[in-house]
C-alpha cells in the first residue's frame, strides 16, 4: 500500500493512530479500541482509501504482554489494489471491542471466531454473537495460550470401551479361526 494512503490516515486522525509502520510488505496501523469504529468507517467511506473488502480478522494471544490480546483486521481495496492492517490491543480483564459488522458484513464469522476461540466480546453486532466451531455450551476458549493442547473440560463423559461385539467369528478349525484366537493389539481393552 502506498505511503500516501497511510499518511492520509495520519493526517485525518493525528494522535489516534498510535503507530504506523510497514513490515514484510504489509502496511500496519495501530489504533486504540475506542477509535476503531471511526477509523474503520473512514477507511470504508473514503474515496482515496476505498478499503471496501474485509479480508480477515484474527486475534493473537500475547500471554506475556499487557495488554494481552491483539486483534488484527486486514482490509483490501479492489479498485486501488492496496491492503491495510489495523491492529487493536485488548485487555484481558475487559475484552470488549466495538463490532465492525455494521460496516463490513463479512467480518461476522471472524468475530464469532474471536469470541469462540479467544473470548473477546463484540458489542453492537447486527447478528447475535454465537460460537463458531465449538458447541454452544462449551466452557472455555480453546486458542488461548493457557488452554492446554489436550484440554479436557469434563463436559463430555468419556467411556471406558471394553470391547465391541463383533459377531460369532469364523468357523472352528479354519485358518481364520486360528488367526482370530490371538487378539490384535487394537482389540484389547483400553486401559486408562
Amino acid at each position, binding site marked *: 500500500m502506498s505511503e500516501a494512503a497511510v499518511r492520509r490516515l495520519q493526517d485525518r486522525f493525528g494522535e489516534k493512530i498510535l503507530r504506523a509502520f510497514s513490515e514484510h*510488505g504489509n502496511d500496519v496501523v495501530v489504533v486504540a479500541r475506542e477509535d476503531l469504529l471511526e477509523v474503520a468507517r473512514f477507511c470504508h467511506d473514503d474515496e482515496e482509501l476505498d478499503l471496501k473488502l*474485509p*479480508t480477515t480478522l484474527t486475534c493473537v494471544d500475547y500471554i506475556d504482554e499487557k495488554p494481552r490480546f491483539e486483534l*488484527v483486521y486486514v482490509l483490501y481495496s479492489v479498485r486501488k489494489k492496496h*491492503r491495510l492492517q489495523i491492529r487493536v490491543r485488548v485487555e484481558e480483564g475487559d475484552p470488549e471491542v466495538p463490532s465492525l459488522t455494521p460496516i463490513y*458484513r*463479512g467480518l461476522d464469522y471472524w468475530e464469532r471466531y474471536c469470541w469462540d476461540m479467544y473470548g473477546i466480546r463484540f458489542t453492537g453486532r447486527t447478528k447475535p454473537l454465537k460460537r463458531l*466451531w*465449538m458447541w454452544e455450551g462449551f466452557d472455555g476458549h480453546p486458542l488461548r495460550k493457557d488452554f492446554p*493442547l489436550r484440554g479436557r473440560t469434563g463436559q463430555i463423559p468419556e467411556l471406558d470401551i471394553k470391547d465391541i461385539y463383533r459377531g460369532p467369528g469364523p468357523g472352528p478349525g479354519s485358518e481364520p479361526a486360528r488367526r482370530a484366537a490371538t487378539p490384535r493389539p487394537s482389540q484389547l481393552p483400553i486401559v486408562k
Partner: protein
Amino acid sequence: MPDTKNMTVDLQEDVLDVSLETKSMRLNMGPSHPASHGTVRFNIELDGEVIRSLDVEIGFLHRGFEKSCENSTWTQCLPYTDRLNYVSAMCNNFGFLTAVEKLAGIEIPERAKYIRTIGAELHRICDHLTCVGAMAMELGGFTPFLYAVEARDMLWDRVAELTGARLTTTYGRIGGVNRDLPEGWVQKMKDTLARVAELREDINTLLTHNRIFLERTKGTGKMSAEMAINHGFTGPVLRASGVDYDVRKAHPYWVYDRVEFEVPLGTEGDNYDRYAVRMEEMRQSERIILQCFEQMEPGPILIDDWRYVLPPKNEVYSTIEGVIGHFKHVMEGIKIPAGTVYSYTESPNGELGWYLVSDGSGRPYKVHCRAPGIQLLGGLEDMVVGSLLPDLIPTFDLINMIGGEVEQ
C-alpha cells in the same frame, strides 16, 4: 364448516374471504445430508417453499488446526495445511510456504517457482472439476459427475507420480520443493491434459446449454458486486459478480507475470455465471501449465542455505557441519526470524491468506489461515433468502465451501 342454518350473508363471500394464517416451518437440513458438502447444518425457516431465513451451523469438522500448529515445528505444520482445503492441497501447501518464506526473507530458485505454479494450477483444475461435477450430480445429472471424477482421477495419478500422494500431498519445503519432476512426467502430463480437456468439453456439452440446468442455475443465488465485496468474497464467486480481482493478476507471485492467461468475469452474479467462470478457469489453468512446461529450465529446486533447508545426506554423513545442521533442523525446528506477515495467494476458491506470527524459536507462535470459504458461507444467507428451497442446492455447491478450510 360454516353454519348454513343461520347464514344470512352471501355464502361465497364469507367462505372465500376467510384469511388463512400460515405458520412458517423450520426445516433442519442436518449435518449428514448428501447435498451439504462437508457436514454443514442449515436451520431453514420456510414459508411454503420460500426461504425466509437461513441459519448455518458449522463446527462438525473442527480439528484444532491452529492449536496443533502452535505446538509443532514449521515443517511439521505442512501436513496440517494439506488437510485444510483437501481438494486442492498443493495450493494450501505453497501458500503457507510462501508466507513463511516472506517472513524469513528468502527467495526460492526459478525452477521451484515453475514447479509450484504447475502444482497449484493442477490442483486448481481438480478443485473446479470436483465442484462442477458434484453440483451437476446434485441437480440430477449423474453423467457429468462421472466424467469429472474420471478426469480428476487421471490428474491425481499424475500428482501421485510427482508428490507421492493423490490428495494430501505435503509437497514443497521452506526454500523450494522437495522433489523434482520425474522422468517422462512432462509428456505424460501433456497427454493427460489433452484427455482431461476432452472430458471437460463433454461436460460442457452436457451442461452449458441444457434447458434444465439453465432453469435451475440462471437467476438463482444472485449476489450484486457491492454486496459481494462487503461480504468479503474473493475468487470465482466474486468474479462471477463482475468484480475483476484475481490475486494472480493484481499482485503476481511465482511466475504468473511471465505466463499469459485471462481471468474470466461474469455479469449477473448468479449460479450460472459461477459455473461458467469455473469452466473457463479450467481452460486457462491448462494454458498456464503448458506454458510453464515450455519456459522451464533445469536448475536447483531448493535453496542452498542450511539454516532453512536440510543439508544433503552425503554431507550429513561425512561432515560435522552437516550433522549439526541436520540435528538442529530436526530437533529444534527452522529458526524463522521473529515478526508477523500477512501473505496471500489465489486458491481455487478465492484469496487464501496466511497471517503468521513468529517468535524466533523453531515453532510458530500463531498460524492463521484466512480461508476463502468462511466469507462465502457468511454470505450464503443473503444469496438465498427470498428464493425457493431448491435454489439453495446449486448456490451452496457453487460456493465450493470446503469443510476442511472453513472449520480448520
